[in-house]
């Protein structure tokens, strides 16, 4: 019986490797290198300031000028900076951090509780005034929220809510863009046929929302949590105006308060007499503030992009 010889693997060939690579990448080497050069330049523009921010807490104030900008200092400096921050104004940084956490938690909950039923209503229930409500949602979601902060201040002043956490929590209940996202979501996942069939079976709109709409809401809740979290956590203008007492402020506003009260950002800190904080400390508080959002941003990039391209998720 003749022995079948195994098929020998093809000999290594540079030309084949190049052809495979060229086919996979879709670019000739010169274009690829040109693209690479542009991407690296952009990496420096976008990445170096962020990297610098994370490295700076490892340096002492003097080392900022002495060491190369991207050189790592040591962890002891991070601890020293942490202690200075904790000693600043009786550890108010932790109060700000806790404020940020619970304000955002309450605001997010309020936003979801109001937004999900409203989005469902606009998408699936034919009530009188629905068109007007949808129009108002579309127009109001495109108005810049910061432009209305001072009129809002006047209203909260009349309601005696200025300098209260509710001044930043309650306005989060009105989130027209989140309602629009929920509306487009329900239009996509609950086709008209399903809604009509359920109605023929005697389902009321409220029952349908409870038994079909709410269980289907998981994806849109995730999308809203990620997108609204970043907006609420980073909110600055309203929080800086509505919360007057230092103990009520949030971390982003706290950065500004520290910079103002300590003169830490001034090139000549000795001009301020007793220097409470230094430049590396401002970098440390910034890292503490931005780290949760960066982590969430990286985890939820897909959702944020989908929310930003909501125009492409068309309604009926």
């Amino acid at each position: 019986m003749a022995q079948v010889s195994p098929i020998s693997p093809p000999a290594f060939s540079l030309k084949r490797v190049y052809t495979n690579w060229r086919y996979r990448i879709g670019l000739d080497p010169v274009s690829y290198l040109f693209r690479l050069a542009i991407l690296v330049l952009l990496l420096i523009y976008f990445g170096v300031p962020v990297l610098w921010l994370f490295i700076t807490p490892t340096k002492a104030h003097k080392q900022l000028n002495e060491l190369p900008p991207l050189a790592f200092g040591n962890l002891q400096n991070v601890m020293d900076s942490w202690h200075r921050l904790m000693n600043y104004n009786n550890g108010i940084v932790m109060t700000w951090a806790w404020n940020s956490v619970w304000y955002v938690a309450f605001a997010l909950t309020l936003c979801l509780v109001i937004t999900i039923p409203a989005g469902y209503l606009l998408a699936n229930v034919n009530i009188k005034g629905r068109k007007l409500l949808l129009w108002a949602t579309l127009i109001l979601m495109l108005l810049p929220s910061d432009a209305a902060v001072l009129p809002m201040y006047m209203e909260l002043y009349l309601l005696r809510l200025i300098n209260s956490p509710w001044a930043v929590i309650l306005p989060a209940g009105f989130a027209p863009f989140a309602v629009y996202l929920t509306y487009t979501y329900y239009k996509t996942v609950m086709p008209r046929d399903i809604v009509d069939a359920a109605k023929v079976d005697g389902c009321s709109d409220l029952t349908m929302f409870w038994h079909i709409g709410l269980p289907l809401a998981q994806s849109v809740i995730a999308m809203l949590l990620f997108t609204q979290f970043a907006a609420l956590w980073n909110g600055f203008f309203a929080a800086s105006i509505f919360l007057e007492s230092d103990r009520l402020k949030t971390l982003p506003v706290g950065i500004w308060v520290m910079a103002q009260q300590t003169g830490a950002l001034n090139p000549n800190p000795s001009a301020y007499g007793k220097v409470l904080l230094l430049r590396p400390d401002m970098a440390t508080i910034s890292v503490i503030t931005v780290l949760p959002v960066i982590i969430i941003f990286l985890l939820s990039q897909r959702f944020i992009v989908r929310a930003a391209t909501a125009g492409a998720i068309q309604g009926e």
Partner: protein
Amino acid sequence: MALATSKATKPSRFQFNSAILLGIPYIGFMIVFGIVPMILAIIFSFSKYGNYQPEYFAAGISNYSSILKDPQLLISFGNILKFGLIMLPVSFIGALGIALILDLADDRLGGFMRTIYFVPGAITLPAVALIAIFMFDPGISPFGFLLKLTGARVAGDILNNKTLIYFMVLLRFFASSGGWIAVFYGALTGINREVIEAGMIDGCSPWQLAYYIKRPLIMGYALFMLINLTIQSLQLFAEPFILQTSLQTASPIDPYWSPNMWSAFITIRTGDFGKSAVISLIMLLISLVAAVFIVTRTGMFKTDVVRN
């Protein structure tokens, strides 16, 4: 009998649909936090303020004439107009160009770079302003060698009233373009491969494909981006405000640099809500025109009540 039948079949004009309960909280919040502030702004704009206490409708149109005659109007709105005129093309060409370059090749490097460009968008604006203060200081900035080439020794040599707008553009592009790059990149990867392959068969190079085929297909997003950036430019506040207040005496920025800063400055310094209401109304009016244009003309937000 006939009367009874007619009564039985006649539908009631006021049928209560319990589903309205789903929307009542939203409608309530929309009225309180969306519509009432605007109505109050209109009322306050006609009111006179003395020691933070209003005399309703006592000012007539004096707040309007005062603001419209104030030279700060041209300065603050002029600043954001200049900022917008530079920012819009830079952001548009920059974000679109970077997305097209990322999409030129199908490799993991593109995805990694896109993620890195995306990260600054997560940084809160006060921290962005802080980074800016450090980045423009030739003594400690990683770009210090470039800054020193201009002869600068301290941040104030670079960051001054003349150059501020250009640095604000650099700053905003750093903080916001990552999101737009991701949006354009997502739209590019959604383009039908058959269209791309047809272009390749016709002899298009990757660069020609990017310019002649991919770019026109995502122009809808570009229009939305331009209008959105216009509205964002209008409400510029956090970065110039923090640069202005943090650097204190060393600050190159006026306290009324942007309309929002001017409005806050008037309110905090004088308690004159009437004048700040007029500034807010001007901004809201401009945004309202842009919003109505977006909804009715661009086709970006198609719903079953708006079709284009």
